[in-house]
């Protein structure tokens, strides 16, 4: 960290048009720096309209060459905008790019302060801070690491499927990890999709199949990611492949085992509790992969130790009761998280009666009811399984736009509810009431669809449903579900008796989204959606290099949006793969072995496992490739034995001195 040669510093103050010059007296700042910071090594201080312009950069390059500058301070905008620009300029002039320090006198001064003199003297202080800091800069070389061409896609819903296929088609290896027995996600449970009303399965299954059969895709269902180590380009991922109790190499997916299995189990996941499956099962006929899984919790053999019907009848001896979980480790360069959403649990809103009043259905239940392949073969009937409803109420925004539950809009519920209205009408001819707060039909062909449903005669009542009860007040309400609502258009309270109610539940983040985020080292918003790098300009990347997000994991969205984001994430990954290698910021920590006492205080601090203890030498060691440069261990080392490049103690301490104008006679400063 010690400075080798005598400092020759150039200071460049940017006007940024009037953005800075409008508030900060840039000329004064430059003159001041030239005069007062001379004894700190400043040999030249200039001002210029736009430092970032090619002319501005040339100015710097010229000075570096002609004045033999060995350090540069640029007082302009935020380093997040132009640090690269000016580092490149230095590099062009043959100066190590890390000998450049940026001072943000736009975002931190001119744009936020009005008092010109206060702003100007603050700018001076910041320049002095930059100068003091840069005196301690040392040449650094960015570590470049090769990018592993393989990619991990977590989540086999439509978003994950899309990105997997894009990358695989481009000829790169993809691992798809899905925790359910089959890929397909929520979309596989739907019957129709809005607004086109085409068959969900018909458009999804072909994609599922091509994922399952693609030579570049390694499909790992009934599996979960347990650990992610490493960094962009070089992630090492540990995956638990849960025991299916089925030998995949032997199983043909003939389905005999499911036929013969004597144990019926209510299917809460796929059939939303409306139907049954066996203890050994594939969630649905078109499942990919075709192999069934054994439901150990419910299998008679595991309960009683006898049965083994499946084993007896399996033509290929594919059943393996002793099969154990497998731990796989895969190397990938990039990761796409498409872990999807959970449906809001309508039980939480007790006055809607879901779970208490039999004929109140959740949206997912209705999807299954209306699904030709569902428990009722597409028949819309009441809980009793036969009665066809004459009147149906559909409640929008269940759990959404509601400060008691989720304050955000779930985006899809309006269109979903409208779709339901159509299906009910089509299958039963019943009168349909939709209860909405606002209709949000904002995308291509959506509003047209809405109009069409209006024409079908569905009644839309604007108002938030207060209560759903089965307590009649008048004869006409006998045996009905009564929906209590304020019709805000008519401006009156209404009680509407119906046979069936469908609650259009909103979407919410996966219950374990925060835990998942931790595993992958990304962050979640307060409500649990993954945070994108930039809400507008970078909605698929995350703050963690090499990790991208797609689909509802990032926030509620409909199928087309999920597909688009999946493809976008794939495009970003392909871009990275094409770069072949990635340069890491050389902000790293390292241990001075002589000074390390082996106290092991730092050992527990690194979340990236970059710190290890060498028992033989009784000292701590830091792996520069794993180190992410947060500097926590540097600050923690009681012996001062850990040093950090880019943000060394010397640099920060000097900057503080500079900011406090410690190296200048006070009288001339606080003017």
């Amino acid at each position, binding site marked *: 960290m010690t400075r080798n040669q005598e400092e020759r510093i150039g200071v460049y103050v940017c006007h940024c048009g009037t953005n800075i010059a409008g508030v900060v007296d840039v000329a004064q700042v430059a003159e001041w720096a030239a005069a007062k910071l001379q004894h700190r090594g400043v040999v030249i201080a200039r001002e210029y309209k736009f430092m970032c312009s090619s002319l501005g950069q040339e100015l710097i390059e010229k000075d570096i060459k002609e004045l033999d500058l060995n350090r540069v301070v640029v007082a302009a905008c935020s380093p997040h905008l132009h640090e690269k620009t000016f580092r490149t300029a230095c590099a062009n002039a043959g100066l190590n790019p890390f000998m450049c320090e940026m001072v943000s006198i736009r*975002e931190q001064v001119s744009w*936020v302060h009005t008092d010109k003199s206060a702003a100007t003297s603050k700018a001076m202080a910041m320049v002095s801070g930059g100068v003091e800091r840069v005196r301690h800069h040392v040449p650094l070389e960015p570590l470049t690491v090769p990018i592993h061409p393989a990619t991990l896609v977590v989540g086999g819903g439509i978003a994950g499927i899309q990105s997997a296929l894009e990358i695989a088609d481009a000829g790169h290896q993809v691992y798809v990890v899905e925790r359910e027995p089959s890929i397909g996600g929520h979309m596989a449970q739907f019957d129709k999709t809005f607004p086109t009303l085409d068959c969900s399965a018909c458009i999804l299954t072909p994609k599922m199949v091509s994922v399952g059969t693609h030579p570049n895709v390694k499909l790992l269902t009934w599996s979960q990611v347990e650990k992610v180590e490493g960094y962009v380009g070089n992630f090492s991922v540990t995956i638990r492949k849960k025991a299916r109790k089925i030998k995949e190499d032997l199983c043909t997916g003939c389905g005999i085992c499911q036929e013969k299995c004597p144990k019926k189990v209510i299917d809460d996941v796929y059939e939303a509790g409306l139907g049954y499956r066996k203890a050994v099962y594939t969630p649905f006929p078109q499942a990919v992969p075709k192999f069934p899984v054994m439901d150990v919790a419910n299998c008679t053999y595991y309960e009683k130790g006898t049965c083994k019907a499946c084993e007896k009848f399996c033509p290929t001896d594919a059943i393996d009761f002793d099969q154990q979980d497998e731990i796989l480790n895969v190397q990938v360069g990039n990761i796409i998280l498409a872990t999807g959403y959970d449906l809001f649990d309508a039980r939480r809103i007790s006055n809607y009666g879901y779970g208490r009043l039999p004929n109140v259905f959740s949206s997912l239940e209705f999807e299954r009811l209306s699904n030709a392949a569902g428990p009722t073969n597409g028949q819309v009937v009441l809980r009793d399984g036969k009665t066809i409803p004459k009147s149906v109420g559909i409640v929008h925004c269940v759990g959404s736009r509601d400060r008691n539950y989720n304050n955000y809009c779930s985006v899809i519920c309006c269109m979903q509810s409208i779709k339901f209205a159509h299906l009910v009408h089509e299958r039963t001819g019943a009168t349909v009431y939709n209860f909405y707060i606002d209709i949000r039909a904002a995308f291509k062909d959506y509003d047209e669809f809405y109009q069409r449903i209006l024409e079908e005669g569905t009644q839309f009542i604007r108002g938030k449903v207060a209560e759903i009860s089965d307590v009649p007040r008048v004869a006409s309400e006998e045996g009905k579900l009564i929906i209590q609502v304020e019709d805000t258009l008519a401006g009156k309270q209404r009680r509407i008796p119906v046979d069936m109610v469908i609650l259009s539940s909103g979407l919410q983040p996966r219950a374990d989204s925060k835990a998942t985020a931790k595993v992958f080292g990304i962050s979640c918003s307060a409500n649990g959606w993954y945070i994108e790098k930039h809400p507008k300009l970078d909605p698929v990347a995350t703050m963690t290099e090499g990790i991208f997000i797609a689909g509802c994991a990032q926030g509620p969205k409909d199928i087309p949006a999920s597909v688009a984001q999946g493809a976008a994430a794939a495009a970003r990954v392909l871009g990275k793969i094409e770069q072949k290698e990635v340069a890491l910021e050389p902000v790293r920590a390292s241990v001075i072995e002589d000074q390390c006492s082996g106290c092991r205080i730092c050992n527990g601090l690194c979340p990236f496992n970059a710190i290890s203890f060498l028992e033989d030498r009784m000292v701590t060691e830091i792996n520069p490739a794993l180190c992410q440069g947060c500097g926590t261990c540097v600050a923690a080392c009681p012996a001062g034995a850990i040093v950090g490049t880019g943000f060394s103690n010397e640099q920060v301490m000097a900057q503080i001195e500079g*900011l406090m104008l410690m190296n200048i006679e006070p009288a001339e400063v606080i003017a």
Partner: protein
Amino acid sequence: MTDAFEPTIIGFTCNWCSYRAADLAGTARIKYPANVRLVRLMCSGRLDPTFVFKALASGADGVMITGCHPGECHYLEQNYKALRRFQLMQRTLKGLGLESGRIKLLWASAAEGARFASEVAAFVEEIRALGPLHWGRADASEAVGAEVAEGPRLQEVSA
């Protein structure tokens, strides 16, 4: 002296959240007082208490430590380490005769430009109310005998 008193405040920011919040406050043109001067760190976990003490010893009247919200740390959990240090630092400063209000911990995400600005403004007023940093009972003016000790030279302080 307090009539003319303009506090000087050093703020330590995290490269991933609060520093970006400051950027955002800028792009959104949200105004706040010019008393605060920011230092960028990669993470609040990098905050060595030495920096805080250095700032106070160098003339800062207050120090603001900012980082990502709990659970949102770019480096997963390092902001919790900053939290622990902060709590211990406050206790120690109290023992050294400084008002604990002179240092402040603020969680601010990259999206909270407005909040960042208002918190800075609030802190400036808190410090203004506390007045210039005085050195408790160890202040030179309280000496036995007339002689006032001469301060250590800077090189020694920062050596």
